[in-house]
């Protein structure tokens, strides 16, 4: 057998031919690879470069410090406290995280619950993410941690900022509070800060109203990150713009005094500068601790807040609507004078019949008030007199006067959630109920019952307008950042000076003249005397049987069925500077008039302290508007001497 036969030749030829073909195929594949490189690197290179940069560079938002809130004298009402905390980084805890926590526990107090939470958080995060172990440490605890740091691998001491309200519940209804951003808020606000972890935004009060200004503009830090999000290095930094400070017209001390005085009650109180509407105190009790919401309110805390009969979450001063009761008579009296009833005298027998219905006066048991003039009608709060006034005015004129005095629509105070109350008209009733107005309703509404509703801040506005004769409106924010807030000058009200003078005299008599409804709680200190008008708002109907058998004393009724007690006031009597309103929910007591005592104490405190005489931390707005009206009386002592 030959070593090499012919077949070798043919198969070698085949091999060579096919090898060359495969060589060609390989060349083709190389061409494809080269072509693909061209496509990716040359044709689309720029696009991929951008994508690589997007991969690499991360914008880290930096939270600017939130603006502070000051009172009129520059006292901090809301600020940012240093939050000393301890963080733990899992990958740096060389002895293991459980051991690290135990070691930290030897230096500062750590509960098992805290440890468990930290372990869970560590498990949920990447190994290089610092997880807070303990927050709000004292300086001493923080120092101890720093001292032991060499023996605490993976532990990072850290100072962050947290919102703090030094006066806690006492100011919560003015300041509001900050809390975590909700899903809904995130969707409706494109501020990049909103998505920052740990971001807090204003949820109520001033914090909400001026949230945008207080928040500031986010800073950013451009960092290079790896695929796991770990920061490799910082490439650039924009510090952002800190939030703007807000100065309020509030007097922090007066606010605290008012809130403490009302504590234990379900009540609201507003004190303002009668000449310009600067709100000096706005209290709604009970309150709650705004710091709870900052750290996250717990289940039991929330249940307590949400279910309490005293409604601590409600700012009653702006969102509580109450029948104004007899305080409404001041507005009726003002309209009466200008509608020719300045010398109207009504003979009060204790009740009056209209159609088949009998309307009673408070004095029905003693046979009525007898001959009652306008000022005396205010002094003794004679219902019969004002039934007659209401009957003569008619509902629409009544509504006109009430609206002019600031009732029936929101005052525009810079607080979210303000309600407008209600001043009924014929048109309103037809629209609301589809039935025509009844004359009996005119009478009932004339003494501030029926449909009429007002908020404490509206009542305070009413008091200020009665005191000054000008359309002052409440205002709270004086200066935001460097900018003074602009407020229009208060225009004169469409009532005659004579009307104001008579109503003020009546209100002066109600407090300072014997027989006046608030006489027992008048201010005795010379020069500080107040004028005012009490009111009672029934929350239940008094039946005929009760009239016959004698009324159940208020103190024996269940709390929720007792009358609301109201009071509007201004002081000093001669030259009104302060206006105030108080609503004491279910606090009715015709003998002691506790709401008047509150007003007495608060207005005495304000005048003793001389809130409005002190230099403010900011320049005044509309200084020209702050002209006090001409004195109408010579002081409260006159009434006593005259022997009313």
């Amino acid at each position: 057998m030959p070593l090499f036969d012919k077949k070798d030749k043919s198969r070698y030829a085949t091999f060579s031919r096919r090898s060359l073909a495969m060589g060609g195929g390989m060349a083709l594949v190389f061409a494809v690879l080269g072509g693909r490189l061209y496509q990716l690197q040359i044709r689309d290179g720029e696009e991929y470069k951008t994508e690589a940069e997007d991969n690499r560079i991360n914008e880290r938002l930096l939270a600017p410090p939130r603006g502070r809130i000051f009172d009129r004298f520059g006292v901090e009402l809301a600020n940012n406290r240093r939050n000393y905390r301890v963080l733990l980084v899992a990958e740096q805890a060389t002895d293991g995280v459980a051991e690290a926590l135990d070691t930290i526990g030897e230096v500062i107090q750590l509960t098992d619950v805290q440890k468990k939470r930290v372990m869970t958080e560590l498990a949920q995060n990447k190994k290089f993410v610092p997880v807070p172990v303990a927050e709000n440490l004292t300086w001493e605890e923080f120092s101890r941690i720093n001292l032991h740091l060499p023996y605490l691998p993976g532990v990072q001491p850290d100072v962050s900022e947290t919102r703090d309200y030094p006066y806690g519940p006492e100011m919560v209804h003015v300041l509001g509070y900050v809390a975590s951003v909700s899903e809904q808020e995130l969707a409706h606000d494109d501020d990049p800060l909103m998505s920052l972890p740990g971001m807090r935004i204003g949820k109520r009060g001033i914090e909400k109203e001026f949230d945008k200004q207080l928040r500031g503009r986010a800073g950013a830090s451009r960092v290079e990150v790896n695929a796991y999000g770990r920061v490799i290095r910082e490439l650039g930094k924009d510090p952002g713009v800190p939030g703007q400070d807000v100065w309020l017209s509030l007097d922090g001390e007066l606010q605290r005094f008012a809130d403490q005085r009302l504590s234990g009650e379900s009540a609201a109180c507003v004190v303002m500068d009668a000449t310009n509407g600067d709100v000096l105190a706005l209290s709604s009790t009970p309150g709650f601790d705004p710091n709870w919401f900052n750290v996250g309110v717990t289940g039991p805390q929330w249940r307590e807040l949400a279910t309490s009969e005293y409604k601590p979450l409600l700012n009653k001063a702006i969102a509580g609507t109450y029948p104004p009761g007899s305080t409404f008579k001041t507005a009726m009296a003002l309209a009466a004078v200008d509608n020719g009833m300045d010398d109207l005298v009504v003979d009060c027998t204790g009740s009056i019949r209209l159609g088949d219905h009998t309307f009673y006066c408070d004095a029905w048991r003693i046979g009525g008030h007898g001959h009652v003039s306008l000022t005396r009608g205010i002094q003794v709060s004679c219902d019969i007199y004002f039934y007659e006034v209401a009957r003569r005015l008619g509902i629409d004129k009544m509504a006109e006067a009430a609206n002019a005095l600031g009732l029936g629509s929101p005052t525009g105070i810079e607080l979210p959630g303000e309600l407008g109350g209600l001043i009924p008209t014929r048109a309103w009733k037809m629209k609301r109920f589809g039935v025509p107005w009844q004359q009996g309703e005119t009478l009932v509404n004339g003494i501030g019952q029926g449909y009429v509703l007002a908020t404490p801040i509206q009542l305070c506005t009413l008091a200020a307008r009665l005191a000054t004769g000008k359309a002052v409106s409440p205002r709270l924010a004086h200066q935001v950042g460097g900018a003074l807030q602009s407020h229009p000058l208060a225009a004169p009200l469409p009532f005659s000076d004579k009307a104001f003078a008579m109503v003020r005299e009546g209100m002066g008599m109600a407090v300072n003249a014997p027989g006046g409804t608030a006489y027992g709680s008048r201010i005795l200190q010379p020069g500080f005397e107040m004028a005012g008008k009490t009111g009672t708002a029934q929350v239940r109907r008094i039946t005929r049987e009760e009239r016959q058998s004698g009324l159940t004393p208020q103190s024996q009724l269940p709390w929720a069925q007792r009358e609301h007690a109201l009071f509007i006031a201004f002081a000093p009597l001669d030259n009104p500077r302060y206006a105030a309103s108080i609503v004491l929910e279910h606090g009715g007591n015709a003998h002691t008039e506790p709401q008047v005592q509150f007003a007495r104490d608060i207005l005495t405190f304000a005048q003793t302290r001389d809130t409005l005489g002190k230099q403010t931390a900011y320049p005044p707005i509309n200084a020209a508007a702050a002209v006090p009206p001409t004195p109408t009386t010579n002081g409260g002592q006159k009434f006593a001497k005259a022997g009313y």
Partner: protein
Amino acid sequence: MALRPYAVAKRTLGMADKLLDVNWGLVLLISIIASAGIAMLYSVAGGHWNPWALSQLSKFVLGFLIMVVAASIDVRVWMSLAYPAYGLALLLLVAVDVAGHVGLGAQRWIMLGPLELQPSELMKISLVLALARFLHGKSVEEVSKPLNLGIALVMIGVPALFVVIEPNLGTTLIIVMDGISLLFLAGLSWYWIIPAVSAIVTAIPLAWRFVLHDYQKARVMTFLNPEADALGAGWNITQAKIAIGSGGLSGKGFLQGTQSRLNFLPEKQTDFIWTSLCEEFGFVGAVAMLVLFATVIFYGVQIAMSARSQFARLLSMGVTLNFFFYIMVNGLMVMGLIPVVGIPMPLLSYGGTAMLTVMFGFGLLLSVHVHRQVEIPRHSGGII
């Protein structure tokens, strides 16, 4: 040139002659490529010799020695060792399925002392040896005879089966391509080729339905639409394309590849080393590397064509094609032209077994070159 009769041919060459006769141009090319690979491993480690570059350098040195030794051994000795090598590789392959330990969800390694051995890598070279040995004596007509073809297909099919159940789709693909290519080069008739190709085309849907693992199907689906799942399974392809593309014309520079340094590239030291190279050295660098690869292959084809025995021709062409298939599958894969299958870039990717077997393959190629004058009778079984 008249054919020298076998008896006249120099049976053996002296060691010095052999070393002088080694194709040192080819060795230089291989060394340049491997050095570039080590440099890339240094770069993807953030400019450190550890953990990959130094280890790869030692593997390359070891591989270099294996290559030189293999080159100096007579091609007929390799012919004699072809079947035992195949048998041993097959045995080891079976062993991984039994005793191999689990890594990346697939059984691919066997511990041989301190060495992690991938029998599937050994199998590629062993199969080339064994098939070259088997086809050496077969004429064009004999190759196409059902019996011979059947034996050859079994030789390809059995190891392919063991590799595919590991499961290692990429290596299976290369083993099958290596084997079929050798059959084709040996002169397999078109009467077999054309129906077989048609059958494969019809079999693909069936394989999809019954054979492929879920993760393999996921890879195919991801490949077909990587952007649909850019953060999940499509991450690899998307990030690899960004790395390559962002290199642009001249690249970001050595050690400046952000995609690999910041860990956006998966398996950057192994299967995706090519993307790092493209990122740091750009179109210019990548094309230069392709030219180096192509030149190596050109040398391989040239050596095959000039060899004087069918065994040597098939062996050298098989080794060259094996090298080429690595480049093709890896290159097409990382550049997003075919689905992701786990195949390293030869000489560049980190990995001991692949480096050693590739270098051993070049040793065989050089042995063919050194012994290119050796003629082997059709019915010879080689010498030992």
